[in-house]
């Protein structure tokens, strides 16, 4: 029914504003809009995302990482409406910088009290943030094997100094 959909939409919209601002910054502008309010059940949904004072005219002007983070904010907004018992993320952190990877992992940690998270990654910071880690490898040609891995020795400090 239209009412049920509009109620769900409003809740997702509120969630989106909150999640987007925690993934970006508190004074960022964002919104979800029903582009054709006259017929909401047929209308598509627009995402307005304006990180840090920028004025992009559409999502396509955002950077690769900003777009990914915006999509993740939308997905978490749905999750908050109706939490799934488990969430699986397949290398979602690939286009993100270190700061955004950390923010994503913090949100995952927060929601992981309610749901189980399975995170596939190549990113060292993400590896350091999980509770247990399994390594998948090619046991013999073309056949997968699995083994639990231990994260005992790990340093990934990167010091960038400005020289000019």
């Amino acid at each position: 029914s239209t009412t049920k959909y509009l109620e769900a939409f409003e809740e997702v919209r509120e969630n989106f504003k909150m999640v987007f601002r925690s993934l970006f910054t508190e004074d960022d502008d964002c919104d979800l809009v029903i582009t054709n309010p006259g017929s909401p059940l047929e209308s598509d949904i627009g995402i307005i995302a304006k990180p840090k004072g920028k004025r992009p005219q559409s999502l396509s002007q955002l950077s690769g990482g900003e777009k990914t983070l915006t999509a993740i904010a939308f997905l978490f907004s749905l999750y908050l409406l109706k939490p799934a018992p488990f969430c699986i993320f397949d290398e979602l952190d690939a286009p993100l910088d270190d700061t955004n990877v950390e923010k994503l992992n913090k949100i995952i940690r927060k929601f992981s009290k309610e749901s189980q998270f399975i995170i596939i990654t190549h990113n060292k910071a993400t590896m350091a943030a999980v509770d247990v880690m399994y390594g998948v490898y090619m046991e013999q040609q073309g056949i997968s094997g699995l083994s639990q891995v231990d994260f005992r020795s790990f340093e990934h400090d990167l010091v960038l100094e400005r020289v000019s």
Partner: protein
Amino acid sequence: MRFSRLEIKGFKSFANDTVIHFNENVTGIVGPNGSGKSNIVDAIRWVLGEQKSAELRLDKMSSVIFNGTKNKKPAGMAQVSLIFDNTKNILPVDYNEVKITRILYQSGESEYRLNNVTCRLKDIYSLFADTGVGSNTYAIIGFGMVEDLLNNKDNYRRMMIEQAA
């Protein structure tokens, strides 16, 4: 309603019996390119009833069966079991553990089982109704879904909100 473990045999690159335990809140899966990480995600989708081969990166469903290598023949069947911890009795079944199994034989025949008893796919669907568990859940997220959200192809965003409503 948590996962307890996943058992894979003959599914894509997992030719051999493999068990993955999911006892923690946040489980990480790592490994080289092509080792089989995304295949684990496919296995979970498949055992939850995924019917679209494209969602599993395949041309046809029979391609989920381990198709052999130079040193090992193709498998006769693909079998995946997902075991849930049901101690909170969220699923309407009398057991502490609920195990769903899906099998596809080279002949094209397929089978579904609930706690090792043959059942129909719709039994599995109705078991999970209202729990938010299903192969088309917005909770299994790869880069394809991120792209679909950004392109908003076929009103993807509205469809996802309708599904969660």
